[in-house]
């Protein structure tokens, strides 16, 4: 898949139980992101930014409300189709990369292709091309433990973009990096997103990075609004 998709969420409600307490994280959250748009979501810790990304990316279900990604109403998909939807449409980047420690950088990047059932040959060139584009051509055979935090995050970015997802969801992609590495990773994310026209929603605590996105939204009190 290439190019982005329109993302629309209406009236999302998500609550958690914390002992006897019910925490309402999303309270009728609405969101509209145009195809190919890059949107930053900011907000205080615990405001539900990650939860929102998980719901948009079909990793989690809202208690109420609708999510549509392109023509697919994600909130109506049966559980059996969620995994294939994620594989075909969504690329995730997480704060702590979540790379597989026993796999090399290259092997981590080609994983989504293997999950889709593609041969290594089918994704080899694209994986190597992505790693080269983020400056890791010399680190292809290195294991995550042999890479710096910034390099690991670049690998995670390549992995997320391997199958040219229509939607890229990044949860604090620079949150665990020093300023220089964080800037570099974010710059690459912007470059790759613009290059593919991927729709991207980025959660960040960093106001300077958020300002580099086309639009910035703030999630507070379970509701999204412009900054």
């Amino acid at each position: 898949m290439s190019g982005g998709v329109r993302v629309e969420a209406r009236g999302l409600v998500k609550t958690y139980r914390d002992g006897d307490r019910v925490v309402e994280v999303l309270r009728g959250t609405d969101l509209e992101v145009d195809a190919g748009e890059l949107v930053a979501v900011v907000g205080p810790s615990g405001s539900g930014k990650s939860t929102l990304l998980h719901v948009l990316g079909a990793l989690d279900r809202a208690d109420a409300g609708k999510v549509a990604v392109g023509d697919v109403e994600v909130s109506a998909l049966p559980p059996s189709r969620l995994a294939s939807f994620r594989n075909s449409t969504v690329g995730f980047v997480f704060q702590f990369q979540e790379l597989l420690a026993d796999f090399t950088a290259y092997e981590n990047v080609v994983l989504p292709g293997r999950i889709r059932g593609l041969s290594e040959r089918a994704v080899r060139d694209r994986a190597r091309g992505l790693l080269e584009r983020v400056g890791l051509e010399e680190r292809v055979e290195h294991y995550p433990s042999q890479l710096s935090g910034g390099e690991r995050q670049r690998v995670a970015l390549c992995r997320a973009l391997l199958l040219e997802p229509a939607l890229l969801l990044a949860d604090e992609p620079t949150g665990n990096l020093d300023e220089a590495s964080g800037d570099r990773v974010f710059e690459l994310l912007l470059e790759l997103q613009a290059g593919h026209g991927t729709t991207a929603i980025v959660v960040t605590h960093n106001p300077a990075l958020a300002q580099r996105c086309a639009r910035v939204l703030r999630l507070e009190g379970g509701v999204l609004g412009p900054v």
Partner: protein
Amino acid sequence: MLGAMGARPAMLRNAFLSLAGLLAGTGLLAGAAVGALAAWLLDRFRVLRLPDAVYFVDHVPFRLQVGDLGAIVACTLALAGLCAWAAARRAASLDPVEALRR
């Protein structure tokens, strides 16, 4: 993480079972081979000596019984399979969001 990338529960279960099968199979083959070789060497060279005036034999004999070996292999395979199945079932049923929070 594999679940977040779109791996279906069946795929996760199979991955765990395959890995467990590989590990258990390798361990079992290596263990059986080393055990059989050790038994043969210990018997052939009479390594464990005994005072024959007390025991009527001058060494501890080792006899490799195919039935015993088969029973050990079968029990080990059954135990490994049971543990692998439990781990694979747990991995396959794990919610990706829960796994990411840990």
